[in-house]
């Protein structure tokens, strides 16, 4: 395997690992989204590489080449098409995610995934009447830190 391919492959795999690790370790939702972007890039790169030929040319058959078709090394177009679609969709999803993050930040006042999850669960419980809504005047220990968020929440309504 030529050195350049090794570098490319390691780069792609490295990007994927960075992305996955980021998703695992980070708590900030925005950073998580970024990690997702990196992961996607890594995988896309990997995909591209699978159809990549070192000395390859664009997969367009010119009339003069028809005679010795087998001599030409071409890059595989299918992975490229696939990646193109994947990138487009990925961007769409990331934009959607970003929009959601904005809304979440506005309402919950935090970007911490753990806190969001906690608040989400609490909200769901309150909606279904399983838990009692925490009043802004209840002791902090009972509200366990949700108090501030909830009062924010209420104010915005």
């Amino acid at each position, binding site marked *: *395997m030529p050195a350049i*391919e090794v570098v490319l*492959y390691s780069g792609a795999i490295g990007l994927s690992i960075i992305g*996955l690790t980021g*998703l*695992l370790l980070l708590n900030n939702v925005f950073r*998580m989204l970024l*990690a997702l972007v990196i992961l996607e890039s890594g995988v896309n790169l990997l995909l591209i*590489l*699978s159809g990549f030929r070192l000395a390859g040319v664009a997969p367009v058959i010119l009339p003069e080449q028809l005679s010795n078709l087998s001599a030409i090394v071409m890059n595989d177009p299918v992975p490229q098409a696939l990646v193109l679609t994947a990138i487009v969709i990925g961007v769409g999803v990331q934009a959607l995610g970003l929009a959601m993050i904005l809304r979440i930040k506005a309402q919950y006042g935090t970007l911490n*995934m753990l806190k969001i*999850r906690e608040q989400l*669960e609490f909200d769901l419980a309150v909606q279904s009447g399983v838990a009692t809504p925490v009043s802004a005047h209840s002791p902090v220990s009972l509200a366990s830190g949700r108090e501030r968020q909830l009062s924010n929440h209420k104010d915005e309504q």
Partner: protein
Amino acid sequence: MSVLDDLLLFTALASVAIIVLRRFAFISKFSVVVYVLATVLLIKMSALGYGGEAVYSSFTVNVLGQVLQWRFDALSWFFALITLVVALFTALFMSGAWGDKYRKEHSKEAYGLLQVALILNVLSMLVLLASGDLLSLFIGWELVSWASFMMMALNPDKVARKAAIKYIVYAMAGAMAILMAIAMTYNMTGSLDYVQVMQGMAQLNNSQIAVLVSLYAIGFGIKMGVIPFHLWQATAYAETPGAGAVFMGAISARMGLYALILVIVQIIGLTRVAAIEIPYTFLDMQNALAWVGALTTIIPTYIALKQNDARYLLAWHGVGQGGYMLLGVMIADSIGTAGGIMHVFNYATYQAALFMTVTAVIYRTGTSNFSKLGGLVTQMPLTFMVMVVSIIGLAGIPPMNGFVSKWLIYRALLLDGQPLLFVAAVIGTLGTILSVYKLVHNTFLGQLRLEHQDVREAPLSMLIPMLGLAIIIFATGVMPGVVLDWVAAAQIAIGIAPVEHNLGGIELVQGGLNMIWVTGVMFYGFAVGAIIFYFLGGKSKHIHQYDNYAGGHFLTSKVRYHYSNHFYAGLMHLIGGWYRNIFIKLEYALVSLVSFMSQLSENFYRSSQPAMLVAAIVMLALWYIMSADGSAPVLVQGLQGGMSK
């Protein structure tokens, strides 16, 4: 159209009619007529009870490659007869005064639903009894379970509701065990038809049989309430509304026995069961099941001894009596099986009568709590008489019918050389005697409570079925041959040598039993006793019930003077410590385990980071793949190969 079609169709149509007409006042009379007609249809098949050919239904369903069919053989006919007779008596019982009071206390709808539950129970039981293959057996089984649940759920009390839900969870567990077993049977034998399964069983090895038998036994055993699945039954039956309890207590749990006899005795065959040794014990599987039966007679009976409510006491006895039936059937000779099967009939009669008497007492006094009863014999003598007849049956004392079936079981155990089982059965009987005396003493004997001074005899509409049952209990006790005919036919149907019998009992070279003689001698003895008592000596003076003394003081009726609390204090001093609620704790532990697992799972769903899960599953998959055949290098090579292409 065979007679079986008529019967099933008639009952189904009657169910629809009763569901539609449930709010009308005439529904109670109507249902009595329905059960009479159904019984007549059943009697048209009475050839079955004397060794006739099985009756097939002309209705079959093809589904998923299975043919569902229905048929009646002697065993089904015997159980169906008990079911319908008990249903008839129950319907009679609830048609009169009891029903009126129930309507008034609850609502027309509630009474109508009780009738609906009764007919649905009867219908589902008939469907179960008529099943002609394992799949239709399972369908009938589930129908019975849910019909019973409906009956139990009619009582809106909290205790009753809890009992009902507990029942249905147990029942579901049982049903699932049966479903597992049926699926395995299908794969092992290639069919679910009784005959083909029976042939297929011959090819199976012992471990397969062992798995099947355990699963079937668990499934059917849960319905019977055998140890260790006995916890649900007593509360559920006791809390069923009055007349419903009569029916449920008498027959419902016996469906488990029917299915058990059908599958384990008839289809699998006890010789196969007996061939399975249980490791680390001296028991084979048949013996183990017999021991389950024996423990079921002992433990619930002694739990019954501690009850302070008549309904609960009876319901716990119901559980215990099921143990005798299982024990009898598991002895597997003609006498023991006859005893086990006959006990179903006998038990149904006296249990129904007992529940009726208790319901009558509740009807008049409003309670079945022993601490609030006593001395009712002067007010309700006929009810008392029925109860005495029934408890003599329950305790298995001659000349009532319960004695005959128990005698058969004892005799079989003797012949079989099973001392410990024999002793266990006797311990159960002795416990029964103790607790039935407590029942009759605390309800009818002793001091009459002041508030019950105006209590009158139970109304005629309730007395008639009670007395009818008492007559049956006595008559089949004196002439057990009547029932033994049917039992023998059922034995032939399940492939066991029929018991040699005559009208009075059975003839054996080594000591038989002739109930006509026994009864005759006993009544002769009583006559002699009566002569000694009544014709000799001075005339006795009847005094009022309240005319008592204590330590030289005459008492007024206001002083509570009735020994009902902690009745067997001496015995409880000794064995009280043995009640450790082990099974309740076991059940609780199981629930705790589920709860713990549930929290664990919930924590998983709650704390999961999406990416972590994805990573986890990928890692899991990779690990699984690599560990599958140690081909990690292959994977790496494959990856490299793939990439370098």
